[in-house]
């Protein structure tokens, strides 16, 4: 998929563990793991808002678009 989730990068920059983020955004570990590993098919604005708030970043810091076509 051309949308890459850089959640792990942002978590590493903020030195935040998955458990800590899970508690702050009130999302289950399994759902956060789905998002982190890029298996998620969609993300709710409310989830994105909570993650941005917890990591003090912009949506663009978490999501990145790369063109697959040559």
């Amino acid at each position: 998929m051309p949308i890459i989730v850089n959640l792990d990068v942002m978590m590493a920059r903020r030195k935040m563990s998955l458990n800590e983020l899970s508690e702050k955004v009130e999302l289950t570990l399994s759902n956060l793991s789905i998002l982190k590993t890029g298996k998620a098919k969609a993300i709710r604005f409310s989830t994105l808002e909570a993650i941005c708030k917890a990591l003090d970043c912009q949506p663009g810091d978490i999501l990145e678009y790369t063109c697959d076509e040559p």
Partner: protein
Amino acid sequence: MLRILHILAWILFVGLGVEAGGFIVCAFFAAVNPAIVKNLWLWQDVDLSGLFSYPQHFLEITILMSITGVLKAVLFYLVVTILYDKKLDSPQPFSPQLGRFLSRIAYLSLLIGLCCRAGSAYAGYLAAQGIKLPDIRYLRLDADDVWLFMGLTLLVIAQIFKRGVAIQSENELTV
């Protein structure tokens, strides 16, 4: 409720399996030694005595009856397995397994309908040739239109179900 359905499906599966087995044995002996089929024919309500002097026709009609019987038994075997796996009372009913089950029983119903249609057409042809045959329902080749209608309806439901599976999967992967 599902338990009762499970028991009913088992009873129907065993009954249809026995019936299909009987038809297969008759078809086998009709192919190997037509002379002893008269002694083997145990179904009192299916009087195929008119066909005993035409071994080739007898074999063909018993083959059609066997195929239809086996397909019906397989259909109920699928129902038994899906009820045994308890996939119907799952909190997430739109599973790919259930989708495959629906598609399979749809195709099986269509096949049964086609076999019944072929069988009844063949029986009609034999009757037109002056061979005495019992009513088509005694040959278990009736209700072809019902099977075809059921198959087509199930095929439509299976397609809708496939979309349901995709939506559920998407919903599960939305965070």
